[in-house]
């Protein structure tokens, strides 16, 4: 998907640019879990176009799904009057994604580590761990209603989730 070449007109001149131009998108969607389907497909297609590996695509897919479900369920609390904004930039080296809801935010430090003790037997609470394990940069804004995530192409993640504390 997407053009291999893009054309820019400057002072009447036409330039042909190779596909190294970043692919960017910004979209506002409804607060329902299925609404991530289209933006997610666009992000993953752009990654394939930019030559990211299957492992990278898997990682970003998982992080986007988890971040969006959190935004809809815990952020907007499924309020149909609220929306979620998704911004992304994909270039030859990295994928950058911002997902922001319209909720009051939360403190990520307040989420217990799902890998220890009885938490291991709880059915919920693994989304943050997975996002941080699969993305090189994973951070919430001060209010706690927006997450910024970056994954670099073909770069292993040291620890792969081991550094996450509850």
């Amino acid at each position, binding site marked *: 998907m997407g053009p291999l070449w893009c054309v820019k007109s400057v002072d009447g001149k036409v330039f042909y640019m190779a596909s190294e131009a970043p692919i960017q998108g910004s979209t506002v969607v409804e607060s329902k*879990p299925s609404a991530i389907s289209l933006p997610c497909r666009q992000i993953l297609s752009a990654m394939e176009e930019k030559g990211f590996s*299957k492992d990278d695509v898997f990682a970003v897919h998982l992080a986007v799904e988890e971040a969006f*479900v959190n935004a809809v369920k815990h952020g907007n609390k499924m309020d149909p009057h609220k929306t979620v904004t998704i911004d992304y930039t994909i270039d030859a080296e990295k994928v950058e994604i911002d997902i922001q809801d319209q909720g009051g935010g939360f403190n990520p430090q307040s989420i217990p580590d799902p*890998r220890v003790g009885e938490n291991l*037997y709880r*059915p919920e609470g*693994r*989304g943050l761990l997975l996002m941080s394990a699969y993305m090189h940069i994973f951070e919430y804004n001060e209010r706690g209603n927006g997450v910024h995530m970056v994954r670099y192409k073909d770069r292993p993640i040291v620890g792969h989730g081991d550094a996450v504390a509850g």
Partner: protein
Amino acid sequence: MAAIQPRVSVEHVDGATVVAFTDEKILEDTDVRALRESIEAVIEKADRLHLVLDFRHVRFLSSAVLGLLIRVRKRVDERGGQLRLCNIHPGIHEVFRITRLTNIFDICESVDIATQSFSDHR
């Protein structure tokens, strides 16, 4: 909404009930709920519960599916049964490893190995 209903196939192998997820991706709450109902129906029906969940077709899942598996495990325990997971794709296995669910699930390479591994296998 044109949601695709997730499906499971159920067969009996060597005294065990083998439930295979037939969807490549398991994502939405509705999918997970439908799966839970299907699997719970199997659990309630079985007399001697040796349950194998076969992931051979699954290439992607979300943390909601991990929650489903934990609920299934609890129900199997309550019924005095045994549970095995098998044929887990390396990418999915990594999700189990990161979350340390490898510590609470018995994961086997294949259906055959899973069915032979039950402690009172006969």
